[in-house]
């Protein structure tokens, strides 16, 4: 899965985000209505798609969707 697919699929996980709104450089915590619920959705998404576990530290250290993607790719190596 490349970064564009990752972004697109993640976007579909968030109920209220309009399609095409997110880009790899979106600061994901600035998503409208951001809450800890979104963080859980990200963890569930990565677990389901990559069989990889993101932890709280991973989420804290990532600012953009690209950062998240890079962490996931690093963990799956």
């Amino acid at each position, binding site marked *: 899965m490349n970064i564009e697919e990752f972004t697109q699929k993640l976007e579909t996980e968030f109920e209220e985000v309009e399609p095409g709104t997110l880009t790899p450089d979106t600061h994901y915590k600035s998503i409208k209505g951001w809450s800890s619920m979104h963080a*859980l959705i990200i963890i*569930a998404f990565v677990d389901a798609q990559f069989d990889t576990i993101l932890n709280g530290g991973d989420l804290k250290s990532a600012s953009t969707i690209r950062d998240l993607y890079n962490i996931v790719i690093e963990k799956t190596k």
Partner: protein
Amino acid sequence: MLILEQYGVRLVRIQEKDIELIRYWRNQSDIANHMEYRTHITEDAQKKWFQTINNKYNYYFIIEFENKQVGLINVKNYDPSKGFGEGGIFIWDKEYIHSFAAVFASLCLLNFMLVKLNICKVSRIRILRDNERAIHYNKMLGYKLVPDQEEVQNQLYELHIDDYLICGAKLNKAAAILSEKGSELKYSGNICAENIKEINDLLI
């Protein structure tokens, strides 16, 4: 006394000793502004309110997270023929507004009231239509706006157990991954007249 625990949150059913703490936070403008009832709550009014909810039809819990009391969560107006009326939550400790306290508390209470008790199929909440954050939050749990509520100021949302079992499954899995504390739902407390029979049966 009734205590629910999961994912590192403890939900402790409120007692009369807690109501002044709740009143203090409920009267703060940044919390009251998200509520339908915004009038300043007096000490006397708070005591009267407690008398109306300290029974088997209403369940209000202090949310404890990281050994701090950070908010309040509730389900209210239980009706044996219809199930629970409406639920609500607010986090008063600003340090914890963006923490996992709220979502873990929501999952813990839904897992107990909707899944474990298994006495009703629907959870209901009301959200002010301009509270976008709360709307996003609850839609991700699986709540859906009830038909004909679009123009209502304090809109009614419903979560059907089938939707929760889908949305909740991935959220509960993620919570279990994230939580360093146990992911098993635990409950404890005393058998008492302020619990419905189904809860007392679990406490035997």
